[in-house]
């Protein structure tokens, strides 16, 4: 059974604005799902609805089989949330604020666990500092420590690496990887596509309150991926011979050719192209292929939705 099951979730605000327009999503236990979407796509609203910060207008959201509205205690006990904004009490001490987070879940004090979490996030040396003395990156670590203090089984990271330096980003990915090893389900929102590419198992694309697609990262990239073939010629050309018109070639700056093909197609047409090139008297010196990035796929999807609307 899915760890997080969202069925036709809707959220509309008083002004009539619909932040979520019938979201359906199923997240398996132990996977890392990256939710990609532009600003205002509904990512944070979706997370808020799952975590209890906002009430969905309609639909059903379950965590670990528990309805987040009716059975909120059992559902929320499983969930940890790292919010997008750095929301911390400035005067609180690092350790005590993390202990407080654990207490809020009604759990007994556990010094060993808190120490382990603080060490894992390189916060142990700062444990007696007050939050306002910490740098921005350190504060973000404190937010993560707070979210982990009750040992959640599902962790939501809302834009965890927005405005974060490279080192912290790597650290964060390490923490995520370690949690995944422990079987924790992780959902992160991001608009850095490279982040999704680096750590996610599956990628969901959300825009205008709707999930446009959820798919295994690898298969997504393969299924939707267009490849480009760069052909370097022994003798650079100024114009593309008309006999090659059917291939929709682009002349590269170096006088070579660029051929775009769909990996999904039955025939990529590469063999025929090579033959036709040779027929046209062009001699191939080198070839290279490049796969489209998630970014291209993402931009394509969002553009498609805009066109449809």
């Amino acid at each position, binding site marked *: 059974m899915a760890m997080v099951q969202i069925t036709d979730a809707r959220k509309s*605000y008083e002004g009539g604005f619909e932040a979520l327009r019938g979201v359906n999503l199923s997240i398996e236990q132990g996977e890392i799902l990256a939710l990609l979407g532009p600003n205002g796509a509904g990512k944070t609203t979706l997370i808020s609805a799952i*975590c*209890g*910060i*906002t*009430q969905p207008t309609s639909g059903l959201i379950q965590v670990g089989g528990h309805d987040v509205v009716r059975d*909120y*205690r*059992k*559902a*929320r*006990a499983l*969930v940890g*949330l790292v*919010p997008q*904004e750095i*929301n*911390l*009490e*400035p*005067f609180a001490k690092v350790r*005590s604020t993390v202990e*407080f*987070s654990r*207490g*809020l*879940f*009604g*759990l*007994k004090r556990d010094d060993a666990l808190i120490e382990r979490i603080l060490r894992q996030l390189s916060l142990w040396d700062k444990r007696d500092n007050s939050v306002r003395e910490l740098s921005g990156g350190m504060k973000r670590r404190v937010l993560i420590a*707070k979210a982990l203090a009750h040992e959640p089984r599902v962790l939501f990271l809302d834009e965890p690496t927005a405005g974060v330096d490279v080192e912290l980003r790597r650290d964060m990915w390490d923490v995520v990887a370690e949690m995944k090893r422990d079987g924790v389900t992780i959902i992160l929102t991001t608009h850095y596509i490279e982040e999704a590419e680096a750590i996610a198992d599956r990628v969901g694309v959300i825009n205008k309150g709707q999930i446009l697609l959820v798919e295994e990262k690898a298969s997504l990239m393969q299924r939707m991926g267009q490849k480009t073939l760069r052909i370097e010629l022994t003798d650079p050309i100024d114009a593309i011979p008309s006999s090659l018109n059917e291939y929709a070639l682009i002349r590269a700056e170096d006088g070579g050719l660029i051929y775009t093909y769909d990996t999904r197609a039955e025939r990529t047409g590469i063999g025929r192209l090579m033959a036709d090139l040779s027929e046209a008297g062009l001699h191939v010196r080198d070839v290279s292929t490049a796969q489209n990035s998630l970014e291209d796929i993402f931009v394509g999807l969002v553009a498609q939705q805009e066109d449809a609307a």
Partner: protein
Amino acid sequence: MNWPAIGSIYSHEMMRFFRTLMQSFLSPVISTSLYFVVFGAAIGSRIDEVEGVSYGAFIVPGLIMLSVITQAISNGSFGIFFPKFTGTIYELLSAPINFFEIVIGFVGAAATKALFIGIVILGTSFLFVDLTIQHPAAMMAFMVMTGVSFALFGFIIGIWAKNFEQLQLVPLLIVTPLIFLGGSFYSISMLPPFWQTIALLNPVVYLISGFRWAFFGMADVPIAASLLAIAAFMAICLGVVWWIFRTGWRIRS
């Protein structure tokens, strides 16, 4: 009920109080002493007695009420406003606790702080005036009920307030005048008849009167009316809190 979580909120709130214990302790002692100097010695020497009680002693219940009410409101409102302001309220909302558990934690802590200060003022009073409390249990009960209900009231203000100005607005514009006009420093019977009738519309009159009865066995209004007033006020506050809980007003959009 998630009592451990309530306990966490409660002790978290109390921690802030203990961090500044000296301030929490000293400021009421100093302000009470000032009241005794101004009202008790300077003015009181000309008033002598009110209904058989020395003026210095007469103002003690009013002084305590004044502080308990203002402290309960300011602690109650600030306690919940602060997480709203810093954004840490997300934590309360995503924890496996319900709104009433949150209320119990915050209001309990705010009331505790108010009671602590009430007791400090009572203790200070003994330094200045001869005081015997006729109904100590009733006195404590009144103080607790007042502390709790005004902490609840403060909590509602804290939820309502969108900024620091609004946070100060209600206490400043409504509560302080009501307290000063509520007979803290005088008996309602000292007012002209017309103003006596007006004063009876002031809920604080009933609280101070009842509280004074616990001290000296005398009251401006019947003790039953005082009990009714505080019970009604608490019921209204609970009703509003219940409504906030149902609708998520200004908390869960």
